[in-house]
């Protein structure tokens, strides 16, 4: 049965789906992050980065737009030996899947109860975990379907990498769930209204940050995309628009991951109310804090590319199984013993 929505609810839904956190937000996020990444890394590397592109003089702010315009003009080449259906579908699926996880993340509480999110479900944490797990399969599928040696190698590496980060992520989520006693992301945020989980579970935060960087294939864990070894990994053969979709999907993923870590460890929207924003709508204030935390996490994740060399796949697997998993288990044990003191202090639930 479809519930009948009032006019204001329809407006709200359109806003959510198309503007924030729906379609426009991840795209804008991707664009800004691409620009910021190039500029920021260039500054680390004693370069200037994009400079002359775009009307805003000497910022190069329009560089991603120029890249995007160029990519959609390019000829689309499908390799002769490729398994065409999967090859053509993979970028689309990747971007859809990547943007899907944003729908389950609460960005701010509404003043009249409920949360500013596209789809509310009490199992949102599990859903997002499931979505994240789908991504390596697309990578493997696309790499296999390209039927190119470098793509296949990249796909194999992506599959291997999955083994390194998936378990630590799941384990460190366990301690969050123990503490907050719910799978509902909104409830998890509310539990942190007095103390953020990053203070209670610093080890868990580090584990999940590292594991998520591996999931995103950011340096030092960009092993499936290692350009010096496997050219560009699984998307090597993609051209033009398809490649644009692949790239954008990566940044969608970055958006989802930073949102998730913000929700889990950094207290989501919690923060002192900003008077000017609060006057317009209390939602904006929450969103502001949320975005600020996301930005900080994004900078941390991007910085990896400037200061670390890439690890080898066996080193990553070693680190995953001998370092991250024990650390996550230690965090679980600590949480189990200390939860009785902390839980009464937590808000919500």
């Amino acid at each position, binding site marked *: 049965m479809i519930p009948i929505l009032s006019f204001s609810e329809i407006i709200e839904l359109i806003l959510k789906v198309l503007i924030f956190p729906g379609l426009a937000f991840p795209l804008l996020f991707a664009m800004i992050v691409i620009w910021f990444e*190039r500029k920021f890394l*260039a500054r680390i*590397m*004693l*370069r*200037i*980065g*994009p*400079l*002359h*592109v775009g009307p805003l003089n000497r910022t*190069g702010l*329009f*560089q991603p*737009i*120029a*890249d*995007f*315009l*160029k*990519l959609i*003009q*390019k*000829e*689309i*080449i499908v390799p002769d030996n490729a398994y065409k259906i999967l090859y053509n579908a993979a970028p689309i699926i990747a971007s859809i899947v990547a943007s899907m996880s944003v729908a389950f993340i609460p960005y701010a509480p509404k003043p009249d109860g409920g949360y500013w999110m596209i789809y509310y479900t009490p199992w949102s944490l599990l859903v997002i975990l499931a979505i994240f797990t789908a991504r390596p399969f697309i990578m493997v599928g696309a790499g296999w379907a390209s039927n190119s040696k470098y793509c296949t190698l990249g796909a194999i590496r992506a599959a291997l990498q999955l083994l390194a980060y998936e378990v630590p992520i799941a384990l460190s989520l366990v301690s969050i769930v123990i503490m907050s006693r719910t799978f509902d992301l909104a409830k998890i945020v509310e539990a942190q209204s007095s103390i953020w989980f990053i203070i209670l579970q610093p080890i868990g935060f580090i584990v999940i940050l590292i594991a998520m960087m591996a999931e995103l294939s950011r340096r030092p864990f960009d092993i499936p995309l290692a*350009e010096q070894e496997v*050219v*560009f990994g699984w*998307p*090597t*053969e*993609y*051209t*033009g628009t398809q*490649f644009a979709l692949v790239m954008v999907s990566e940044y969608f993923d970055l958006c989802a991951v930073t949102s998730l870590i913000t929700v889990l460890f950094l207290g989501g929207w919690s923060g002192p109310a900003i008077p000017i924003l609060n006057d317009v709508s209390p939602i904006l204030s929450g969103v502001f804090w949320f975005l600020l935390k996301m930005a900080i996490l994004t900078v941390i994740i991007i910085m990896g590319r400037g200061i670390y060399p890439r690890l080898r796949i066996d080193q990553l697997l070693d680190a995953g199984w001998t370092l991250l998993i024990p650390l996550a288990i230690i965090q679980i044990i600590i949480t189990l013993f200390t939860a009785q003191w902390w839980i009464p202090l937590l808000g919500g639930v």
Partner: protein
Amino acid sequence: MLEKIGKSLMNIKLLRKIFNWGRAWSLWSVHLETGCCGPEDMARACARFDTERFGTLPFPTLRECDLIFVTGFVTKKMAKRLKLAYEQMPEPKYVIAIGHCSISGGLWWDSYSVVQGVDEILPVDVYVPGCPPRPEAWIQGIRMLQEKIAKEGLKK
């Protein structure tokens, strides 16, 4: 069908200009070094000269590249690979010939294994002379190519 729509859209002058702008300012270059100008290729992409300012970024895979720098002489053995790499790049694509050797054979005019000028195998858009040309000259070559692209498909 889609192609037709695309072509008719491209006839609109404003759209054409916008798309040309996008192409001109995002020339990703292939990592294929053919001759001695290789280190200057690195110098122009790296810290001091940094062609990323103009949107020219060295890119690992040639499937997304638009620009191929023929860095110096092309041997007969390399010529086949160069042509193959050029053919693998998706349209639209551009070639800049760097250095005397790639323009006319240069110092190797009587060599048994050097192609006398890269224009025998690839259509060259911009020639940058020098042995090797300074990174500033590379940048000028890129700028000239950008001007050329900006005029593409537009009546004078």
